[in-house]
């Protein structure tokens, strides 16, 4: 913040319009953008840093107590936290597979066909994405309560597929927009059946879009708190466990697990970028 102030202070009283615009784009905007990007990653740096805070096994203190690898050495020392993380990974995997298939099919229909109900489908996807999570969670819980369905892993998976379908459909659809249908027609002209056309021509072409949709679904699922909180019953997931621990104190393992998940996610994303660059 002080950087901006000190740079702006000696500004000449009446700068020429052209040079003031240049200063704006050369100096003020980059410095500002850098500060905003720093603000965005600041909590991530804090998470990584506090994973190393030497404040004992019970709770990480706000105050910095020195460097320690305790959290890394005793990563799985909290059995219920480990179990919650396992639940999260299982739920994310299952719900991602289901949502990716269902969402991709919807995207295919929306991109290639004009059909009655297309606008309605768009509207439902829009509503699903922009509805407050709490409304999605509370309404689904109303359904389960009305039928006396016990909450647990199954209801969490149902909920996660529900909020992921629209995201997958939208992502895949965006990637499908530039898809050349002539390639399919060419395959059919060469007497390829619909199944062969799909598996040999369509699928390889839209695969990057499906992968992107699937990764997004996985990330949203493993991260979800609000909707899961409503439909979990007594089952714990990683975000639920962390939220529950806020009042009693966060053990160092939470920050370490968060750091490892972060590192893993960034690694996969970078690999994806590299793979796409190589293909192009």
């Amino acid at each position, binding site marked *: 913040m002080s950087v901006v102030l000190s740079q702006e202070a000696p500004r000449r009283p009446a700068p020429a319009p052209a040079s003031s615009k240049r200063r704006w784009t050369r100096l003020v905007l980059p410095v500002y953008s850098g500060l905003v990007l720093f603000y965005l990653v600041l909590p991530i740096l804090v998470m990584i840093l506090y994973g190393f805070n030497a404040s004992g096994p019970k709770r990480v203190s*706000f105050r910095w107590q020195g460097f320690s690898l305790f959290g890394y050495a005793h990563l799985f020392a909290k059995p219920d936290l480990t179990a919650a993380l396992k639940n999260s990974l299982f739920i994310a995997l299952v719900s991602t597979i289901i949502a990716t298939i269902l969402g991709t099919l919807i995207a295919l229909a929306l991109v290639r066909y004009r059909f009655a109900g297309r606008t309605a489908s768009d509207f439902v996807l829009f509503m699903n994405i922009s509805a407050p999570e709490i409304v999605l969670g509370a309404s689904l819980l109303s359904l389960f309560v009305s039928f006396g369905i016990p909450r647990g892993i199954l209801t969490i998976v149902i909920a996660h597929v529900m909020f992921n379908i629209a995201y997958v459909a939208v992502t895949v659809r965006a990637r499908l927009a530039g898809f050349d249908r002539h390639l399919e027609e060419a395959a059919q002209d060469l007497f390829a059946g619909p199944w062969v056309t799909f598996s040999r021509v369509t699928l390889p072409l839209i695969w990057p879009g499906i992968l992107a949709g699937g990764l997004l679904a996985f990330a949203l699922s493993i991260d979800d708190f609000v909707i899961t909180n409503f439909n979990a019953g007594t089952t714990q997931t990683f975000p639920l466990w962390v939220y529950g621990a806020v009042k009693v104190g966060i053990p160092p393992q939470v920050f370490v697990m968060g750091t490892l998940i972060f590192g893993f996610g960034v690694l996969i994303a970078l690999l994806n970028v590299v793979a796409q660059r190589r293909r192009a």
Partner: protein
Amino acid sequence: MAAGLQQLGKPKTRLGKRLAPYLLVMPGGLWLLVFFLIPIFFMLSVSLQTGNLEEGFTMTWHFHRYVEVFQQYRPQFVRSFAFGTIATAITLVVAYPLAYWIAFHGGRHKTTFLFLLLLPFFVSFVIRTLAWQFILSDDGILFGTLKSWHILPQSFHVLATRTAVISGIAYNFLPFMALPLYVSLERIDRRVVEAASDLYANKKDVFLRVIFPLSIPGVFPAVGDYVNASILGGTNTTMIGNIIQLEFLQNFHYPVAAALSFILMGVLLIGIFIYARVLGARSIEEYV
């Protein structure tokens, strides 16, 4: 031979073509129907019932509940909409120059900046909010250090105030705002934006057509948030989400909680309706 085959296959293909989109939409559509649309009606139904967890709930068409809960929780409603709107406005103001700069002046490192913008998505939402609690806490690395240097008075605190909750919400929605803004700005022809002759008209156009439509839907999720209020807030920053959560999951007052959620849903529907009316139904298609 080939012509014969094609003719034989034709009627079947035509029917198949007509059915194809419905068959493709059906599985996902059914899932959304059963677990997204129908539950909204069940929420409405639960909200009109009376009873308690032990004796069960029965339908009594208790419409008056809506008046009761609205009167009882009016401060939380007002606060939620105020926080949501302020946070969205702040996010827009903060995100727009950043998106503009990346889109038009990002240069060779554009991908890197976009990647930085995406980084928060790799950390759990709850942990990010928790990290803000650590940053903003009275004796944490930021304020604790400033206080020990006597730059800030000992009584200074941000945690458990409105400022903490609003900035927490604004932080969480920053990437969600900046990314679509960037995508839209990127699409706009630079020369048109920079043309000096009709600069004013274009800027207004850009605001009305691009920035405004992109920022409005951000208000809805912000209003329903309760994690920021719960982790960063205090007793006088309770939002409607906190009440819904408390009534549903701790007090088991299902009808009260369902009525509160339904009011939120109703406001959202009205919002979407106005949005579609003012900006045209196409804007929804484009947004999705």
